[in-house]
């Protein structure tokens, strides 16, 4: 299997007025061709910043400190802006959380899709319009001939998310990054959008990196999971492995909280304790102030991300080291 995205040891900081936000630290992540991979973690742990690092759509005060992001033979950390423009919307498509605000209110949806086509192919206006129509059909919009000429305000939230997906996949990217694509939608629409993304993955062979809070979606649609905590990956494993034998104490807490039907929540706030501040993360293991299994080395020494047990899982925890 060849990979479409390979992040190695990436560190990205935001140099804000308040200080350095350690949004992404020593993060490694891989997505193979046609694969669906999940990136999960509680609010503020750096999921979106990871995605925006890949697209290089970070705020101007963001700084890459180390590592590489390899896509289509290029390192996106150092690629010139011109190369990034070809990657964005060409090799990698991205959709976001809130479909209501992510479309330009002044332009017809067809134009907005055709723009992506024209930016990445030599297509003329007529040709691009035809491809925009085709893209709308691809995202299962009934009555696509008319919808291409609608303005965003004429469409429902679910429709707009479909349009955004159409824009993202108009040029058949090899990777589609979905940053909480269904959080803002109601439940029935959520399921439809996830089905659509999954279908597109099979039809177009587009790999999917799904950023989500919803472990149910992960179980249903993804084959591998990266669990992120405070800017770091703390566990990286197959879906079955992670649901049956979660190894990292944080992953265990996540699963437990998601199993409590009374507290199914947008967020993992159900885990005791405060999520860490990335401005001043705790020393040692970032999870130690909240970890039920904290022991001697945890508050002072940062555990490495190491292979755990017989499986393929990688875990960042001193308990694993102790086992070996």
């Amino acid at each position, binding site marked *: 299997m060849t990979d479409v995205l390979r992040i190695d040891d990436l560190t990205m900081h935001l140099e804000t007025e308040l200080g350095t936000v350690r949004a992404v630290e020593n993060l490694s992540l891989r997505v193979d061709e046609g694969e669906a991979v999940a990136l999960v973690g509680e609010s503020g742990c750096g999921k979106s910043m990871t995605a925006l690092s890949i*697209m290089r*759509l970070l705020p101007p005060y963001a700084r890459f400190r180390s590592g590489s992001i390899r896509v289509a033979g290029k390192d996106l950390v150092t690629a010139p802006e011109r190369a990034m*423009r*070809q*990657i*964005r*919307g*060409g*090799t990698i*498509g*991205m959709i*976001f959380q*809130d479909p209501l*605000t*992510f*479309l*330009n*209110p*002044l332009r*017809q949806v*067809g134009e*907005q899709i055709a*723009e*992506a*086509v024209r*930016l*990445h*192919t*030599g*297509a003329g206006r*007529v*040709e691009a*319009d*035809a*491809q*925009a*129509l*085709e893209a709308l059909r691809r995202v299962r919009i009934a009555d696509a*001939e*008319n919808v*291409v*000429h609608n*303005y965003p*305000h*004429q469409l429902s939230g679910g429709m707009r998310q479909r349009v*955004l997906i159409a*824009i*993202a996949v*108009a*040029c*058949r*990217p*090899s990777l589609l990054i979905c940053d909480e694509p269904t959080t803002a939608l109601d439940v029935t629409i959520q399921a439809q959008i996830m089905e659509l993304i999954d279908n597109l993955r099979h039809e177009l062979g587009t790999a999917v990196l799904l950023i989500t809070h919803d472990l149910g979606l992960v179980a249903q649609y993804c084959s591998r999971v990266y669990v992120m905590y405070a800017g770091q990956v703390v566990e990286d494993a197959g879906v079955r492995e992670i649901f049956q034998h979660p190894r990292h104490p944080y992953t265990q807490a996540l699963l437990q909280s998601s199993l409590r039907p009374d507290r199914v929540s947008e967020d993992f706030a159900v885990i005791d304790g405060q999520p860490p501040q990335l401005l001043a993360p705790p020393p040692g293991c970032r999870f130690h102030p909240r970890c039920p299994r904290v022991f001697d080395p945890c508050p002072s020494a940062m555990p490495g991300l190491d292979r755990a047990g017989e499986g393929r899982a990688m875990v960042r925890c001193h308990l694993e080291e102790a086992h070996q």
Partner: protein
Amino acid sequence: MVEATSKANGGDAVATDVAAAGKARAKRGIRFRYARYVARRLLQAVPIIVVIVLINFTLIQAAPGDPVYALIGQMETTPEYIAQVREEFGLDEPLPQQFLSYIAKIATFDLGYSFRFRQDVSGLIFERVPATFLLMGTALVISSLLGIGLGVIAGRRPFGWTDNAATIFALAGFSMPVFWLGQLVLLVFALKLPWFPVQGMVSLRAPSHGWGYIASVLHHLVLPATVYGIYHLTLIFRMTRIKMMDVLVQDFITTARSKGAGERRVLFVHALPNAILPVITVIGYNFGFMLAGSVLVETVFGWPGLGRLMYEAINARDYPLLLGLFVVISLFVIIANVLTDIIYALIDPRILYR
């Protein structure tokens, strides 16, 4: 990836036809909505015009003493003429009747006679319109374009050095009174440095037509248009800057970037049209203030336009002329506002769907 796309769809003539046909249909639909919107907007202007005329009529009626003097002014006239005016305006008839005949007169642009200038008021006013429009149009267009351009540059990198420089300049321009600035500019660039003429619209020695005439008018135009435009420019600049800062952090800009749009495209195709909407409203609604401001600028620079005429009418207590100016200027303001709304809808089609 790219080749795959064009191959998959490139030869699909049917899809292309369907898309083109749909586009034509949608275009007709939009045109229809637009025409309906323009018609509605024009209709809405009618009652406003009636109100303006009514106000003018009330002014005549409310004038102290006999309303006939509001129509004649404080000129020495013969009793025969007074009787004639009384008859023409039906001043002996009941009020509603009078109002109707007044509307009829205004509809035919019969605004009375100015004794001060010994000329029809309407002729007098329309003679001056081109000069004012030349001055105001030049000032409005150039300062709007400059203001928007500077606003885009500054709003793109707020608090960078270009932004700071432009903002300081704008603050200075914004706080200088037109009257004072006009005199200062005259003093420096017309008297101390004899680069520009002091007064008027065209030099007496200039040819009466052709390029020589145009050159002379342009030469005369520079100082008053600059003074006239500077306040407007700073206003437009500040608004564009703020709106650009606003729009550039909005989500759909991220979408534009994530589909591979370059910086210029993001700025001018996605951000600017959204940022410029309130600016257009301000430009249009500012038109009235600018017309009012023409009194100052045209007086300082001896520019033979409506503002100067207004100044002269006030000085001479020429009521018919003043009332006529009031009607005509009000009409211009209404037209400008309607035009603004029509242009707004060209950029923001959401309005057409209300």
